[in-house]
């Protein structure tokens, strides 16, 4: 594995009395797909928020390459080359699919024509070309998930954070999304994936990070983590059945 493209060191976030993320550290290698698992409330999405600048960590640092991005506002983080999707679907409702994606594309260029062609590529990459001129709020859940990816992709990231992109999607649509993640991994992106569906996480991840109550309880290759007694007890337990 080559040098880390992202290094997260002991980040912490507290909401009132609750420590949502407690001294979480990990690294992300180039071209790696890192899976993050954990029950609801484990702090996974908050971790994404801290890394992507949506929220500011109380402590700890995040480095992208050699650059310390901790505490940078989200729009600066995006321009450093770190893009994300959101767990709760947030299409820019009044805008068409293309316009949604173009917002991200302007990270790479200020020229409209160029942004448009980047957007077209990204829309194509997620297979939404036939919906390109539709308003974003007209898409189905699966299509919205793909729009999220296209939008993030258009910013020209080196690192992509995908937050439960299969949640709420019809099971028949899941293989399509798995395929998409593989495709993204082949595009030389380093990816962090939050997932609940074991089928997906085992299929796509190179390495796994298990969280519980804001802390990392296990880390390593997927098979090992899945066998970790703590993980099984805390999280998988009775429900180690593919959802």
């Amino acid at each position, binding site marked *: 594995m080559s040098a880390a493209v992202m290094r997260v060191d002991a980040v912490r976030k507290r909401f009132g009395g609750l420590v949502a993320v407690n001294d979480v550290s990990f690294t992300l290698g180039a071209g790696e797909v890192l899976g993050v698992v954990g029950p609801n409330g484990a702090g996974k999405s908050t971790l994404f928020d801290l890394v992507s600048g949506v929220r500011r960590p109380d402590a700890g640092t995040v480095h992208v390459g050699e650059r310390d991005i901790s505490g940078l*506002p989200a*729009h600066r983080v*995006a321009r450093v080359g770190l893009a994300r999707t959101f767990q709760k679907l*947030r299409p*820019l409702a*009044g805008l068409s699919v293309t316009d949604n994606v173009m*917002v991200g594309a*302007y990270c790479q260029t200020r020229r409209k024509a160029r942004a448009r062609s980047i957007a077209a590529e990204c829309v194509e990459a997620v297979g939404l070309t036939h919906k390109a001129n539709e*308003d974003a709020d007209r898409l189905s859940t699966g299509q919205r998930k793909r729009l999220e990816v296209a939008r993030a992709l258009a910013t020209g990231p080196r690192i992509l954070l995908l937050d439960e992109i299969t949640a709420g999607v019809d099971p028949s649509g899941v293989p399509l999304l798995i395929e998409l993640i593989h495709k993204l991994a082949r595009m030389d992106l380093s990816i962090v994936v939050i997932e609940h569906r074991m089928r997906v996480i085992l299929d796509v991840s190179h390495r796994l990070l298990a969280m519980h109550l804001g802390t990392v309880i296990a880390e390593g290759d997927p098979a090992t983590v899945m066998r970790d007694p703590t993980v099984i007890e805390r999280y998988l337990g009775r429900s180690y059945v593919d959802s």
Partner: protein
Amino acid sequence: MIANSWSRHGPRVAALLVGAAALTILVTAPGMGGYLMTVVITAVLFAYLAQCWNIVGGYAGRFSFGHAAFFGVGAYTTGVLGQHGVNPWLGLLVGAAFAALLGAALAVVSFRFGVRGPYFALSTLALAETLRVVFTNWEFVGAARGVMVDFSPGSSLAAFQFDSRLPYLYLILGLAAAVTALVAALDRHRVGLYLRALREDETVAASLGVDCQRYATYASALSAALTAVGGAFYTQWLLFIEAPTVYGVEISVAMVIPVLLGGVGTVWGPLLGSLALAPIQEGARALFRDRPGADLVVYGIVIAVVIIYLPRGIMGLFTPRPKVDQPPVAPVTPPVPVGAAR
């Protein structure tokens, strides 16, 4: 889909309609009687103001309910400086600068403290009301007496005063055309897209690299400055201003209604809205001259009917949305206190 072609052409039809109306005004203006001309000047002024509001209220999604604050700053700066011998055009520029500062400050403060949606609307209302109270009591700006601009006979563009109404009409038409061109350019430009993006969802926009605070501030300052220009025009046109009028809620409301009726965040909506409203308002007033109040009844009904049948405003007629095959999932936008994240 056929509907798509219509929706593509829709804005053009709207533009054509507005253009035809503007041309009609332009051509018939010299023959207009004083009454019609005054009505048209008022209507075009408020169409202009609606378009100014549209930049921040429509595109940037900051529903301001106190744009009278900027209007009043423009009107008062021009008027008060004029009393001290400053040329009104200079007064207009200074007023626009003051308003831009105020608009920028409003945007920065509201961004910093996460004041959004109805809270933002109400805080702008409070801002305008604050200025109204201050200006009513502030001796330097004439307090409750208001500001009277001396009328100096002799038309002159340099003095921003004209003997006849016609130059005022051309001037305000020019301003309205200019701001519409600006909004049309914005609509196609990256910044316009950024504004629409941050209107829909600031967190998402930021995660896509949009510096929301910066662009919201630009929009607010620009809108405020242009609104102040409208205020300066008002001063020079009527030659008298007083705080309850120029900082009044009624001015703010009059800027908002045409936009909402015409179509929020569209280039032609505010103009279509004004184009539809002015004749209705004036017509109802003329029709029910002997029954004061009846015109308000009619006006109220028209507003309600338009909103009920055209929930996206008149522009909705021109850009219809085809029926969806599946009901879209209700967009979930949890109330994220953006300011808290900083």
